[in-house]
């Protein structure tokens, strides 16, 4: 495993932005996760070599932060917020619905490798609860019907453009 040319250029630029190259640990991990979908042991070794750090320093970063995956996940990771505002607005029903539609439990991946279901702590979208994150995209004000449509769209590799949060007005 190696960094490609575009990544190498980006790394050279990043080195100018921090006085200590250890600061590149998170950015490089993001770089690899973006390309591969997860950060393998091999990737950890690559980052350690690039930054001249002990491997354990890189490894502990990978395991400590919740957003880095150590293993291959589904193509789309559905992360449904189950913290207070989302819970109050019915996130558990959304989670149950996804489980029954995809026939998986929280933490599992569908047999076709398309979807992994996870729950997440507060994602800062409380005014548009319940919500979930898929990659960089937030899906807000979820209902069962909306979730069905989102899953259909994702199967067809369609993700709508992200827009600023639009708060609802309830009765």
């Amino acid at each position, binding site marked *: 495993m190696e960094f490609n040319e575009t990544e190498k250029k980006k790394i050279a630029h990043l080195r100018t932005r921090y006085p200590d190259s*250890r600061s590149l640990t998170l950015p490089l*991990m993001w770089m690899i996760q973006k390309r591969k979908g997860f950060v393998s042991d091999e990737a950890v070794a690559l980052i350690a070599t690039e930054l001249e750090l002990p491997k354990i320093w890189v490894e502990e970063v990978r395991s400590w932060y919740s*957003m880095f995956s150590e293993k291959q996940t589904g193509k789309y990771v559905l992360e449904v917020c189950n913290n207070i505002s989302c819970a109050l607005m019915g996130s558990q029903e959304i989670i149950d619905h996804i489980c029954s539609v995809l026939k998986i439990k929280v933490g599992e991946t569908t047999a076709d490798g398309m979807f992994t279901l996870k729950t997440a702590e507060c994602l800062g979208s409380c005014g548009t609860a319940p919500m979930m994150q898929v990659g*960089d995209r937030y899906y807000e004000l979820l209902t069962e019907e909306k979730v069905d449509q989102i899953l259909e769209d994702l199967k067809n590799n369609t993700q709508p453009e992200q827009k600023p949060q639009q708060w*609802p007005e309830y009765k």
Partner: protein
Amino acid sequence: MANQNILLNFDRNGANHTLENYLKRKGYSTLSEKIPNMKPEQVLDEVKKSGIRGRGGAGFPAGIKWSFLPKDSDKPVYLICNGDEGEPGTFKDRVILEENPHMLIEGMILAAYAINAKHCYIYIRGEYGFALQRVQQAVDEAYRAGYLGKKLTGANYSCDITVHKGAGAYVVGDETGLMNSIEGKKGQTRNKPPFPAVEGLYQCPTIINNVETLASVPWIIDHGGAAYHSIGTEKSSGTKLLSISGHVRKPGVYEVDLGYPFMDFLNKDCGGVIGNRKLKAVIPGGSSTPVLRPEDCEKITIDYESIAEAGSSLGSGAILIIAEGSCMVKTLEVLTHFYHHESCGQCTPCREGTGWLHKIVKRIEAGQGKMEDLDLLTSITKHIAFHTICPLGDAACGPVDSFVKKFKDEFIEHIKTGGCPFGGKFVRFQERV
């Protein structure tokens, strides 16, 4: 009382995140018109006069924080913007990051001038993909227009900003945890002292402020600290962004003058509780702040001192509304799960204690609690709070102590009847669209 729009001074439907739009709103005019005639000390002085208190949650006066920087250090000074918004219920910084990033950038340039920082970092939580994208675009635009880089447009100094993406960790919202994270380490917090102003990022003097605090700086410098101080109350000056969510008819982010009556805000501005239900509880400042009963809220005004007097805290300005018909034990189970999940593993009382708290609340909710559990909960919190390096431990205890105290009957009912009177889950109100 009319509330001012200092931070939300734009039409939310427009392309307000662009440089072009910000310039139309007289953006960067403070930098190009006021700064050439001001010394760094004068900028610091205006911020001090404004009395603005840190908007991240702790409420420490920003100007005083800045003045803690050592005068005789030959090390570089760093400025960090804390955009790791993670306190459950809080989504107000996201509005600035996504929709008004240039105001934040201008605020950072001004703050950097005041404290003589040449390099600034904006740390944004990894989940905020859209905010990261918008802020990076804005930073790139500002570089192209010469507002960032060497010898800034309209001012004779240099300032660089680097956007740093987090990777999911509540505890990184603590200033020293965030610094460790920028340094490429686990985001565990550091013992204080030394305080960041003396020894922060890369062991250099560092000032770290919340997004909202820094975004308020252009207005403060433009209108003067005294003008800002005249808004709000004596001890809580200025406007505050409030993010309100839960069982409220019109959730969202609002900007109000501090000192605004809470019930007016809830009922007039936010339309009251959904479905005209009765109010059951309010968490006034993010999930870590003690819960209040409706009668506690009757007289409070939205400012630091009034909410403190009621036994809670304004925190990050994240107001959670809980309607009658919701189970408070279940709500606490969600919160204790969160703190257990986010405990970083560094201090034993928090690492072990948050797990115990969750386990006990969970068993009460499942109908397997014992009467002794209530005392057990408060005895555990006594051993966590103020026995940890960072405030996560204290934060985990605030909700536990207050829920048990204010809704004791409901906990006892769970224990005595051996089950949850609300059926063990949250009721989804039909008003939801």
